[in-house]
């Protein structure tokens, strides 16, 4: 017999057992309000969900983090220490006569990358030209783009930092520690970069570290001494860039920000979700992963955890409340990689599920009155 009770339709579970939405929200409110230092983490959400989550963390004097903060912060560390040159994928599409692709796995981080950059087509703005495409450190067999002749500079993951450093050195006319043959190949690439009219470097922070991004940006700065060159960053998963932007205008800071003193303090180490849970500093957590139900990064939390995720992602332990997938089950604003801007995604498969913001509102509505606004 198929279970069709209201209980089952409620899409909420406690330790794997179905409970009513009403009970779930009530419980969640109790758990979060009782905590001394609750954590709002995951934050895989649309902009409205992030707004609600950050306001919740602020009201509870807890902290918040995003599940892909590591990737956002990789780029951001470079911004904060040295600055950055960036453009949009669409501007690269219409103008870039040279694309420098950096690292492996780019299509994994952004499946539509080559459809958007249209490197097989001629440039449009500033005159029609065929593109030159150089890929540094692709995996074996990866450097294939339909209709494009890709030049490669081989580098394993371990070699990539050294190769980038050497390329930067050659752009600046400085010596490298590489062999004459390797240097010759890099010289040809460096020459190509310098003779580009409007070149773009494309990278995904998820595959690099800050030092590599800093090297890349240092090289871009040098290239701008004589020509135009800029970057196209590929953002982190689960709405990372949209949440980063939202967090910045709401608090002044990126995620990994805490409100223990009643005002925001940002510390990428102190307010990292996993550390807060494993160290016991956070005594309750709201884990949000509305896009794909990614599980939390911590081992064995012995603190109460409330999870907001898609219906299939119910947890065996703790409280689970199903929410819709942003932009899929409900209209949602998120940061679009293809335009590098906030956009409204219309629901393709509307569903009778709460949005992240609605679920948080339902929890907040059940806080007892002694929690001030």
């Amino acid at each position, binding site marked *: 017999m198929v279970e069709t009770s209201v209980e089952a339709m409620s899409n909420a579970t406690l330790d794997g057992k179905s409970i009513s939405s009403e009970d779930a929200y009530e419980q969640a409110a109790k758990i979060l309000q009782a905590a001394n230092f609750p954590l709002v983490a995951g934050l895989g959400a649309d902009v409205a969900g992030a707004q609600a989550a950050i306001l919740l963390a602020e009201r509870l004097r807890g902290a918040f983090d995003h599940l892909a903060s590591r990737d956002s912060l990789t780029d951001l560390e470079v911004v904060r220490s*040295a*600055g950055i040159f960036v453009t949009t994928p669409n501007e690269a599409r219409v103008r870039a006569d040279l694309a420098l692709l950096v690292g492996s796995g780019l299509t994994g981080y952004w499946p539509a990358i080559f459809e958007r950059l249209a490197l097989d087509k001629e440039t449009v*703005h500033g005159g029609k030209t065929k593109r030159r495409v150089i890929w540094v450190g692709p995996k074996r067999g990866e450097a294939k783009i339909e209709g494009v002749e890709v030049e490669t500079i081989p580098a394993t993951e371990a070699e990539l930092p050294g190769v980038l450093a050497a390329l930067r050195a050659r752009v600046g006319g400085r010596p490298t520690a590489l062999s004459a043959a390797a240097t010759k190949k890099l010289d040809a690439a460096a020459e190509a970069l310098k003779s580009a009219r409007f070149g773009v470097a494309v990278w995904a922070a998820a595959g690099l570290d800050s030092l590599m991004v800093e090297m890349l940006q240092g090289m871009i700065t040098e290239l701008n001494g004589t020509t135009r060159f800029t970057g196209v960053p590929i953002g982190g998963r689960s709405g990372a860039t949209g949440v980063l932007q939202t967090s910045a205008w*709401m608090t*002044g800071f990126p995620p990994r920000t805490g409100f223990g003193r*009643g*005002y925001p303090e940002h510390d990428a180490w102190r307010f990292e979700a996993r550390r807060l849970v494993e160290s016991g500093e956070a005594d309750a957590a709201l884990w949000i992963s509305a896009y794909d139900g990614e599980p939390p990064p911590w081992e064995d939390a012995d603190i109460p955890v409330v999870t907001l995720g898609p219906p299939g992602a119910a947890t065996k332990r703790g409280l689970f409340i199903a929410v819709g997938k942003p932009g899929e089950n409900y209209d949602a604003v998120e940061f679009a990689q293809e*335009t590098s801007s*906030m956009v409204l995604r219309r629901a393709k498969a509307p569903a009778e599920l709460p949005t992240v913001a609605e679920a948080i509102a339902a929890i907040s509505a059940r806080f007892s009155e002694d929690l001030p606004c």
Partner: protein
Amino acid sequence: MLIRLRGGHVVDPVNGVDGVADIYFEDGRIVAPPPGREPDEDHDVSGHIVMAGAIDIHSHIAGGNVNSARLLLPEMHRSIRARLAGTPLSTAKWSTFETGRLYAQMGFTTVVEPAVAPHHALHAHLELGDVPIIDKGALTVLGNDDFLLGALREGESETAIADYVAQTVEATGTLGLKCINPGGADAFKQNMRAFGLDEIVPFYGVTSRQIFKSLQKATQTVGIPHPLHLHMNNLGIAGNIETALATIDAAEGLPMHLAHVQFYAYGVDGKNAFSSAAPALAAKINANKNITVDVGAVMFGDTVTISSDVLRQFNSLSGAIPKKGVIFDGDANGGGVVPYAYRISNYYNAIQWAAGLELFLLIDDPLQVFFTTDHPNGGPFTTYPELFALLMSAELRARWMERLPADVLEMTTLPSINREYSLYEIALMSRAGPARLYGFADRGRLDAGSIADIAVYKQQTDKAGMFRNAAYVFKDGELVVRDGSVTRYTKGKTLRVRPGYDRAIEKRLDAYYDQLYGLSRSIFDVPEAALAGRSRYAEVACRK
């Protein structure tokens, strides 16, 4: 509920009022004294100045570039104190929430964000929606966009360009149009490092002059009340007074607003080849009544410059303090974020400070000049009270001038200027003028029917202190500030115009986006549904 402000000194230039009077309001609007009715709430404001809420016509408070500045400079905005109940995030420095609180506390009730890129309009509106209390507006940036430049290259009709302008302003939900270094951002993408009024944008074959004149004309044609808001070429460069004078001539008598003109009031006199040319610029503005300007005054201190003039921002990177910046080549203008520190001991900075004050004091008509610091470019908006105080006291200015490098005083006429602004003139410049500039019929004034946005200041000799902490602020008739503190949030509105146009332009634009980007143009829409109740629009009427 009928509320009365009793016995205050009312300064309301729109209605020629400058004296003790009572103000009544009810249901968010000012009303005539209702005969035979006692007020439900009565505030004794004797010893206080009563003005309409102030309107800031140009302040970079929201959008992608502003947000980049927040992320670039965490060290510049560490918070230090907890908020009051009922005002979430109001002490989070540089946040949208703090912005609303700080403006309200100074008696400001409407603020215009002047640089919204069409492809990033939704982002800007999301941020504006998170600015509490005050009403907001914005300007849409055109002038480095391929569609316009291509249309000019092809010699398209003025009607086509007017339709494009009207459609873009409507789609982006703003109060009008701004043009920032017309053609200069595109030229920079094509590796030009300087761009003057009559230089040609490669590939398009049009000049800066042609671009802004077409936008100026289109703005007039479609009836947008705010004239084209122009950020001229050559910002910040010694000798750029010539650019400013030539640009005013190029306006040919049609209405135009020039942004942050202090940054264009530079001559090449003196041993540093950098001097104030403010007197020449002020004289030109006095002689051209079609021109309005905001000053973009420099106030000493640490700040960050945020501008869609990406060419200029790239050139200023080398002088960044601290040494870092963001250079964003956008789909059209893009932007640059470069931190900077204005020092009273620095010759160039001191000239800039003096030139700003000269402009305020030498432009005769307060309705032609507005008090911006081009927040945060010349200094943060929180320095307005100090700025007002400087305008109101020659003696205060003299005290500041004593601290400037001695050679500065030979390169500015500031020491010879005795003019002191009256409160009436301050109200003209900060209330009446801005309302007129944006076509607000019911703001910046205190007669019956106007919105009950009211600022009440305790009269005192310390004018900066007076303007820093309003004694009372009412927004839409609700008390939101008492003794300089915001005690609760209200939700402001976002003001926009809806100019009419021939809908045929939409089909053309759809095809353009399909062809160029392989994307539906609708991806850049700013539907009200996306703002989810955080922003409510209010419409400002266009001229027929």
